[in-house]
């Protein structure tokens, strides 16, 4: 099926007009994007999701898998703050598992760069999307990576362990394995214990070859020894973190649960206050927050750049479909692409083809 039937284009134009009316400046992005930047940001996984092509003069290129990265780059290079942008165009996604999933579809997006009141900016983007999709029966899911980050920072353990957990926040399986190890639930195996106890751990090992030097191996052995001597994470803190990750409720109910958790986890207090301010702003903007769901783990399996508020709009009872709309806050991405500069930013995209499929023409 073509990505651009007249009906889909009309729906895209309708959504785009709503974003324009919200004060957005229209932007475009090249379809061919340099692969090295995307690879650096997302890692090898992007190769499974984006089409790669070669350019004899400019090296490897990718068909744009989304607009966010080029829009952030453009803004960080030239934009004045605050700014709001809207775009509409095709994105391309490789599908390795399901031949029925679209490889090419239109995204209509809105991005808001404004550091003056982040919870309000979050609410404004969400309310804009909820309004644009109003009338379509959609489940509204939200989460807050900022609360998880604050919880990890507040753990009673070494910075190295916190950094390891933070790095794998978006890989739940490995995150769990790290948590089990740091809390003493799983022990280092006998071979590892023997290695760390050895006077000369390199005895019998092969010659030093490759770029990773003997010194780097020694540095990691020192890290492993230090970690082996680190006391386990207190069980009570692991339980609190598990409670936070398992939280799933309507947003107002989740807020009172989070406020309870913050009593025992004071590190998340500030992030929970931000969450409360966002909920207030949502109500002020006319969103029925009792219909907004909050999941403690929401956003942990999506793209790695979201680091605050995250949201998605889903067709009820249609688990076979991707979300109709997704978005979130990505302050850290602006830091990576801004070469030293950063600015709080939040945004999202809607798929007009899915909005049409679920809601019908309006």
């Amino acid at each position, binding site marked *: 099926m073509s990505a651009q039937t007249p009906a889909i284009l009309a729906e895209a134009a309708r959504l785009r007009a709503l974003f324009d009316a919200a004060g957005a400046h229209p932007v475009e992005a090249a379809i061919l994007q340099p692969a090295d930047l995307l690879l650096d940001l997302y890692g090898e*996984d992007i190769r499974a999701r984006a089409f790669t092509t070669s350019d004899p003069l400019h090296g490897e290129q990718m068909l744009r898998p989304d607009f966010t990265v080029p829009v952030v780059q453009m803004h960080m290079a030239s934009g004045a703050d605050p700014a709001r942008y809207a775009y509409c165009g095709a994105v391309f996604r490789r599908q390795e598992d399901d031949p029925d999933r679209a490889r090419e579809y239109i995204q209509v997006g809105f991005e808001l760069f404004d550091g003056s009141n982040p919870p309000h900016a979050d609410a404004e983007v969400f309310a804009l999307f909820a309004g644009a999709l109003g009338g379509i029966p959609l489940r509204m899911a939200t989460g807050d990576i900022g609360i998880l980050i604050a919880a990890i920072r507040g753990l009673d353990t070494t910075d190295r362990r916190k950094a390891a957990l933070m*790095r794998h926040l978006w890989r739940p399986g490995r995150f769990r394995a790290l948590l089990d190890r740091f809390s003493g639930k799983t022990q280092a195996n006998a071979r590892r214990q023997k290695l760390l106890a050895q006077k000369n751990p390199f005895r019998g090992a*092969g*010659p030093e070859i490759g*770029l990773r030097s003997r010194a*780097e191996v020694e540095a990691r052995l020192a890290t492993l020894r230090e970690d082996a001597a680190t006391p386990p994470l207190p069980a009570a803190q692991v339980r609190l973190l598990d409670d936070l990750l398992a939280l799933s409720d309507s947003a107002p109910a989740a807020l009172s649960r989070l406020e309870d958790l913050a009593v025992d986890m004071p590190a998340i207090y500030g992030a929970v206050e931000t969450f409360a301010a966002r909920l207030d702003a949502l109500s002020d903007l006319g969103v029925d927050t009792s219909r907004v769901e909050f999941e403690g783990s929401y956003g942990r399996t999506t793209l790695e750049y979201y680091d605050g508020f995250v949201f998605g709009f889903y067709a009820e009872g249609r688990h076979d479909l991707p979300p109709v709309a997704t978005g979130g806050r990505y302050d850290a991405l602006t830091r990576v692409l801004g070469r030293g500069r950063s600015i709080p930013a939040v945004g999202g995209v809607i798929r007009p083809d899915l909005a049409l499929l679920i809601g019908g023409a309006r």
Partner: protein
Amino acid sequence: MLKLGVPSKGRLMDKTFQWFGQYGITLSRSGSEREYSGVVNGIDDVELVLLSAGEVPRELAAGRIHMGVTGTDLVREKLPLWHVQVKELAAMGFGQADLVIAVPDHWVDVDTLDDLDAAAAAFRARHGMRLRIATKYHRLIRTYLRTHGVADYQLVDSQGATEGTVRHETAEAVADITSTGETLRANHLRMLSDGPVHQSQATLLLSLTAPWDDAALHAKETIRARLGLRE
């Protein structure tokens, strides 16, 4: 006519010919050593198609051959939807090879995937690039590392002499097939202890997309019966 795709040279071809020979199906090359055409005796309506082992998965998926012999590593690497495109009829008991991830033996701190992940994080912080793993099995390795939550690596393509890439500093680790581990050891590499990514062997495969005429169907049933395979 049933088209049977078989590796066109080397041990894999010889062993395949022997294997079918046990069941009274005699495969041989016709003409000179260099001519890629074959002869089938002992069964009717089977045409031998000599191919590179790497092309057998694609030809099966496209339905241009009805049956084929190749390694399961190549099937899984080249056909993301292999389970709906081909069916594994029989493991043939030769061509065994493990797809493994191997690191320099002097990395005494790296024994498992968990270590590899931690080493990759430190390597990236120090060298400003992701840890490079040389391989030709991009899809299998990427899927495996994603499933196991390994980050901060990149795959670099290596179609041959992969074990040499670490010494030449074009990669920090390798992912390749090995049967005895001899080449890895000779190049001062050691496989991770988590076990192989995939255990491959020569396998007789059936195309699920090929068109069948009466003669081909009859030949298929004859082969099944000779091999003692049930429907």
